[in-house]
């Protein structure tokens, strides 16, 4: 449990949201509402930060529907290298970019994806998540998903940049995040304050993007039902 009252409250709400079984958008709103209620300053800074990213069309250059996602080879939590092209040989793949274990929205999204893993695998598809965190910290997300899918480490956001999804957290925003007790430099093993824009790509077995969600406003995530619907189409 965190010493910071905002973070402590968010941790509790995250657990509640994960357990609630409600639609993902509602669970995410529980967090956004609580941030706004407990720290209008933080919520206002987030509005300004994601507003600027949206205005600058951050993430717009990420691969589009109909294009392919470039191959990656990244280690999972056990240190085994996982290659996208090898996964695609077995069927469609859902590639998910998450910011890290410290982000309540990411934890809730990871848990919601964990809930559809069985359906996905019945449809012959695999889910993989990518975070810029070292394994020690990414393990938290693995707990939230019940180990349902591999979590891969993209240290230093190299793969995220190669698909135009890396953003820099400016000094005002990073000061607020660090002030809340979230030690991103330690989680990532560098002090660059880069994060991936949360994203979901549903790839057919040839690697072509069938559905895509990219939004620099990290409080909004892909519609999980739509992810399942695209997988049904691909099955």
């Amino acid at each position, binding site marked *: 449990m965190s010493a910071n009252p905002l973070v402590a409250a968010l941790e509790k709400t995250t657990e509640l949201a994960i357990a609630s079984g409600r639609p993902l958008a509602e669970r995410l709103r529980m967090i956004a509402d609580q941030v706004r209620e407990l720290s209008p300053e933080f919520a206002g800074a987030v509005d300004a930060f994601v507003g600027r990213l949206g205005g600058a069309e951050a993430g717009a250059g990420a691969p589009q529907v109909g294009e392919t996602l470039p191959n990656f080879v990244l280690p999972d939590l056990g240190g085994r290298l996982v290659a996208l092209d090898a996964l695609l040989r077995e069927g469609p793949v859902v590639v998910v970019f998450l910011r890290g274990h410290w982000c309540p929205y990411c934890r809730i999204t990871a848990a919601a994806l964990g809930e559809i893993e069985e359906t996905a695998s019945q449809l012959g598809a695999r889910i993989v998540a990518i975070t810029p965190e070292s394994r020690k910290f990414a393990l938290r997300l693995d707990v939230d998903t019940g180990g349902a899918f591999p979590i891969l480490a993209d240290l*230093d956001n190299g793969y995220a940049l190669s698909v135009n999804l890396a953003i*820099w957290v400016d000094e005002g925003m990073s000061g607020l995040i660090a002030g809340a007790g979230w030690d991103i430099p330690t989680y990532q093993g560098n002090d660059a304050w880069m994060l991936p824009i949360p994203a979901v790509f549903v790839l057919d077995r040839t690697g072509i993007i069938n559905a895509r969600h990219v939004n620099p406003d990290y409080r909004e995530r892909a519609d999980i039902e739509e992810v399942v619907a695209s997988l049904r189409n691909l099955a």
Partner: protein
Amino acid sequence: MEMQQVRYFLALARALNFTRAAESCNVTQPALTRAIQALEAELGGRLFHRERNQTHLSELGRLMLPYIQSIHAQADAARMRAKSVGRMKNVELKIGAMCTLSPNLLSDFIVAFQRANDGVDLNVTDGAAKQLFHQLSAGEREIGVVGYPGEIDDRFHALPLFRERFVAVLPRDHRLANQKEVRIAELDDEPYVNRINCEMGDFAQQEFAKQGVSVRVVFRSERDDWVLGMIRSGMGWGFFPESCEFPRDVAVRPLVEPEFSRAVSLVTVRGRPHSPAVGAFVKAARSFAWSSAPILCAA
């Protein structure tokens, strides 16, 4: 940030001239300018100041330069790795470990790496620090695993992995053996059994001297089994990294006031092109859940 914006930013930071930067990227100057402006909008400030014929980095530009250089290099490396993974078959990876490092510290990591990269054949030799740095320079070893107390030469790149503490090893019937821990001051003039290859020992002795503690060397050996044998038979105390394998019939006590510890790092030669196996090993080491506290390393 987009890969292309990042490339243009790095070219302009090098050339400090829009025309030359655009030429070096094979684009028109307006295209380069638009990309830089888009990046500035995303980062929330000017990256360059344009004054008449001069262009220079703004404060934000200077702040971002090392981060952008690093993430750009990582993106290139990610792409290389995605391409080269199929080619890592029967590759030999030559690792040199400092002889004072216990295999216990690394075995879990090395086994995990081996399982994940079964095309890589690991060849590990050991030696004293000086010899190891020489072998790295000469290309005889590709990666060094080093726990060195002093500054590491600029020619090398060191990636700290974790810290390891040092302990006092005492004969069972030593007057300090029934204490929970041993203060440095209590070791004044105690007979000391010296491990010749321990670089940390020399470093620690200087600290001892500062406290007015004299170290009375009564035996020296290159071999830890000899040194431990002498301790067991009552000759004196010894200074060891905590991860060593100790016989049961000696007393192992933490050293305090001050504590001594060393960072254990992976060392490679700066600027040398490395094989994909070296890259995979370094990457795996960075993301491995080391059991002792990880050390924050700057990007």
